[in-house]
């Protein structure tokens, strides 16, 4: 039976499909109408017709300007109908150049015609497929102006279609700027007006809001234009303010709040603007509550995360708005990855700056368990968002000592970082690791056992400077007041070669942290001697490299501090004393115009001349010969170094035989 019907379809379709190619316009018209009627509402028929290779002929009939307009219209409607089929159908349509043909057609068809409307409708269907054939629509000003003109003046159907197409198409700065020049802002504004006493229609408003959001996203110029675009007596932000109110459909309110958020983040609205504080923010907090559907809540949390990402006052406001914390904690429990991701991101934003908010987040019932589970989530988006959340929370000293330890958050985190993570995850994850490795963090020990040192050393070899920074920063934190074996392990694992590479890094912050690591390694006396006995030449060379190189003052200061630390070692002192080059530099730095370098040099000198240690007299003699004593006396006389006078006096007091 089944076979019979298929046979019938093909048999019956063949005759009129043949007539499509006829030269008789009447026959073509009849065939088109039959074809159109057969494909409407039937995906099977659509696939069958496409596989029979009719599309090129349809495109030809559609585009041929010499043909009867009715034939062109029917052909376009048929194409539009095919474009409502399965994703495979749309793909094959795109392959055959349908999108380009439609765009070409739009350049010439008269505005306001049925043909234009049908073409736009077909193009909208094709553009709703992912990935959309955005290349088919060039950023050509004449074309875009024409399209925005349609969006302003044409029939409701055509306007909605063209705006939807443009919203999909607008994906980068070039498109944003081009659309703005073509006047798309005012076209979108015109669509945002809800006449009084009428029920707002999401099908009309949502495409316009999406277009506006796509245009303003991270683009200050466009956002500024949107801010000043008016329709009637209202500017775009005012129109949006009307749409975020409680009596509007949720999806409309969500998209309007998103537009306001993008305007704010692109710098068009200040964070304390009433339309943000009393419009977008409360609307988003309301959409996060339990009463709403999961996808609305997920999107609202995501937008709210973006809105509150940087501004502390907005974070504080969101934290008390409409029980947001418990709403978010509930969203984390939702099944979908999008919901979990949105909620974690939002927690991350809220806890970014304020310690009290972090405390509120942690105290939200059962949240830490969810974060740990989130880290283990197979969806990379969720685990990334969970790491972001963790990173935010790890800025709190109190959390590092208590909650994080209770939940052993470092375990899944280390696992994530060892498991070939993506660049973004690696970045946030290693930043979190940095915080976890702070000296007072109890997670430090177990993390070492998990191979943290090796992983961090590998990070310092990455091409991304942010990752190198995180790696060396984490190592520095780890080395702070660490046991000697840990220090040895770091030195051994990092290797002197890598050390010098990092000292020559293009990023000053990396150099600073590298020197910081050296300082931390060379702390307490025993450690200094032990390490110097093994790495003296490399360390001294590193210091000289920095002191001689053209580095900024704060880098050189770090190098001098290392020297000072070495000077604190019992045997290591001799290493400096033996190096006349270094000693001469010391004299120079004591007279350096930069006061922090003077201070650092003073610290070195002070350590070297300290009385009561073996060989102090000899060192004092040598330093006096080299002019250190004179430099110190000059320093004492200097008015500019008044704040150093106490330290200078202490150092000079050590030299009492010479003064």
């Amino acid at each position, binding site marked *: 039976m089944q076979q019979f019907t298929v046979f019938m379809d093909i048999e019956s379709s063949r005759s009129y499909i043949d007539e499509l190619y006829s030269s008789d316009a009447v026959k073509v018209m009849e065939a088109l109408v039959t074809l159109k009627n057969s494909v409407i509402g039937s995906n099977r028929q659509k696939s069958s017709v496409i596989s029979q290779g009719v599309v090129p002929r349809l495109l030809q009939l559609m585009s041929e300007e010499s043909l009867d307009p009715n034939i062109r219209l029917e052909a376009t409607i048929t194409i539009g109908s095919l474009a409502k089929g399965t994703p495979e159908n749309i793909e094959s349509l795109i392959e055959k150049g349908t999108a380009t043909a439609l765009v070409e057609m739009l350049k010439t068809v008269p505005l306001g015609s049925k043909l234009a409307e049908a073409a736009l409708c077909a193009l909208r269907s094709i553009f709703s497929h992912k990935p959309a054939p955005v290349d088919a629509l060039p950023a050509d000003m004449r074309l875009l102006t024409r399209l925005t003109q349609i969006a302003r003046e044409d029939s409701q159907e055509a306007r909605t279609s063209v705006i939807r197409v443009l919203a999909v198409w607008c994906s980068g700065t070039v498109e944003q700027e081009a659309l703005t020049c073509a006047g798309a802002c005012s076209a979108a504004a015109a669509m945002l007006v809800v006449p009084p006493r009428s029920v707002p229609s999401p099908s009309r408003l949502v495409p316009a809001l999406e277009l506006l959001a796509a245009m303003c996203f991270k683009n200050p110029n466009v956002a500024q234009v949107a801010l000043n675009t008016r329709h009637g007596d209202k500017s775009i932000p005012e129109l949006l303010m009307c749409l975020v*109110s*409680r*009596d509007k459909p949720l999806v409309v309110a969500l998209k309007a709040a998103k537009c306001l958020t993008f305007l704010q983040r692109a710098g068009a609205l200040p964070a304390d603007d009433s339309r943000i504080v*009393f419009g977008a923010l409360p609307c988003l907090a*309301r959409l996060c509550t339990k009463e709403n559907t999961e996808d609305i809540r997920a999107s609202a949390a995501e937008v709210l995360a973006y809105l509150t990402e940087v501004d502390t006052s907005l974070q504080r406001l969101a934290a008390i708005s*409409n029980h947001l914390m418990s709403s978010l904690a509930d969203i984390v429990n939702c099944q979908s990855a999008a919901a979990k991701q949105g909620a974690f991101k939002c927690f991350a934003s809220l806890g970014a700056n304020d310690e009290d908010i972090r405390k509120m987040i942690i105290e939200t019932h059962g949240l830490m368990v969810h974060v740990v589970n989130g880290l283990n989530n197979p969806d990379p988006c969720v685990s990334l968002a969970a790491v972001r959340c963790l990173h935010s929370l790890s800025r709190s000293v109190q959390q590092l000592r208590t909650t994080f330890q209770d939940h052993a958050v470092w375990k899944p985190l280390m696992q994530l970082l060892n498991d070939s993570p993506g660049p973004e995850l690696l970045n946030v994850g290693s930043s979190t690791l940095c915080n976890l490795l702070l000296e007072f963090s109890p997670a430090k020990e177990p993390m070492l056992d998990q191979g943290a040192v090796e992983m961090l050393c590998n990070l310092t070899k990455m091409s991304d400077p942010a990752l190198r920074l995180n790696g060396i920063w984490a190592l520095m934190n780890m080395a702070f007041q660490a046991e000697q074996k840990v220090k040895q392990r770091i030195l051994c694992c990092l290797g002197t070669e890598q050390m010098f590479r990092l000292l020559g890094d293009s990023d000053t912050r990396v150099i600073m942290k590298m020197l910081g690591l050296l300082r931390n390694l060379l702390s307490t006396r025993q450690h200094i001697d032990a390490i110097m006995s093994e790495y003296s030449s490399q360390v001294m060379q590193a210091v000289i490299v920095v002191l001689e190189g053209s580095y900024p003052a704060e880098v050189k200061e770090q190098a001098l501090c290392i020297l000072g630390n070495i000077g604190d070692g019992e045997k290591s002192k001799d290493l400096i004393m033996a190096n006349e080059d270094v000693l001469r530099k010391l004299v120079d730095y004591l007279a350096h115009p930069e006061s922090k370098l003077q201070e650092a040099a003073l610290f070195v000198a002070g350590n070297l001349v300290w009385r009561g240690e073996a060989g102090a007299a000899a060192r004092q003699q040598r330093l006096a010969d080299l002019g250190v004593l004179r430099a110190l006396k000059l320093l004492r006389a200097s008015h500019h170094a008044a704040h150093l006078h106490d330290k200078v006096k202490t150092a000079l007091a050590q030299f009492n035989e010479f003064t």
Partner: protein
Amino acid sequence: MKLRKSEMAAIGSGRGTMDSQNQVQSDTVDRLKLLYPNVNEEETPLPRAWSTKDKFSYIGLSQNNLRVHYKGGTQGPGRRPHLPYLHLRLWMYRHGKTHRDAASVRATHPIPAACGLYYFEVRIVSKGRDGYMGIGLSAHGVNMNRLPGVGRFPPGWDKHSYGYHGDDGHSFCSSGTGQPYGPTFTTGDVIGCGVNLVDNTCFYTKNGHHLGIAFRGLPPNLYPTVGLQTPGEVVDTNFGQQPFVFDIEDMLKELRARTRVAIDEFPLPDEQGQWQQVLHRMVSTYLVHHGYCSTAQAFSRATGQPIDEDIASIKNRQRVSKLVLAGRVGEAVETTRRLWPGLLERDPDLLFLLKCRQFVEMVNGTDCEASEDGANGVATSVISHTGRPHKRSNGVAADAAEEGGGRDVDMAPAANGDHEEADASSQRASVERMLAFGRELYAMSQKLSQDLYHKSMLEDAFSLLAYSNPWDSPVGWQLEPVRREAVCDALNSAILESQGMQWSSPVEACVSHARSLLRRMSRAALGACAFADLSALLAR
């Protein structure tokens, strides 16, 4: 602030200018009436101030009973209890340091359910010594001046008592331990408390920001309440007389939209499901009822609705109605007597109503005593005798214009007749006829049951004669053409009833039924009645 402006505009546009006309003091708008339009304040007054009686003695009130301050028990030696020295020291030590010092005040009235969404705001003028302040709701009957420790705590510490406390930001629901709820609040903050009488929930706001729902399952008839506990605490209250910091209009809009959707989507039983039919029937009967004859015929042709009444009968009613609406009441009475003999004789109240109106129309100059003078069609007024002949014709002209604009399309403005100046003798004669008519009317009233309604109607009508320019007088409202409609309806209903038909049309019966259901809902504490906007639903 932007929000406030839009709120004002929304309220202002929602209620027409008719309201402010009817109001005696039109310059001071009662914002509370605009916020809660469905509340009948004669039945359920709105809270407008704190109660001077329903409070504990430590509470002081000022500024029209809108400012609350803590005065404690140390306001003078007389207030101190007579206790032995040591006990007194203990008393003083405790005073202002324990919960026993807490004192609350309730508003003058409970929140009417017909508010739908009730809201008030409290501004913390000073947090005083410790800022132990509670804002919320409580039920009637808790004696606020009881023994310490039981009944005089801030809201949230007693049965049916709900509060949000400033010192810790916790919410208290009839218990001694609070739940973490929101931020703390202190001097300068504005705390709002909202009650959703549809869902029976309560929420708070801080400086215009919604903090989320604090309590669910609230009982009805709660009073706005504040409680203070330490010296120096002062709060100001806005029960709605001033614009709120929070955008309450936004929530009102949401609830209205929700109620509307609930009404629209209400499932209908199948046996009553033939809506098209029912609606056509309602429209048809309405048109017939009011005598829109040709419209009714056209509608019946288009929808196939039968008309139960004879067309000639409808046309007769239409004729009489037109006469009344044109102010030619005398003619209307005559026509009625001719077409429906015995009707007016059986209903003296109706006849009195018609005659009263006829008298008013005589003053107006639109009616003359129909029996004698109707034929020559000269309109007469007393005004021409009181020395202001032009005023009369002006008045009539204005009436004609109003009639043209205000009447239904089917009722073409009746011709007012030619108002050429009648000669003086004819005028004098007509005035005498009017006075005679008045005497007749008075005699008629004596025969009727002497109730207040008839009496005041007659008094009002006669009062018109006391003014040189009755149109501009305090009783001038009687002369407005719109006043004819009630008379017309009464006559029309009586005719229909005498013919054995319903005295009111199904549409109107349906509307008044719905209206009384809303009143019942309000009495039954169902807050949704606030958002069922009957006139908006009908206007659709």
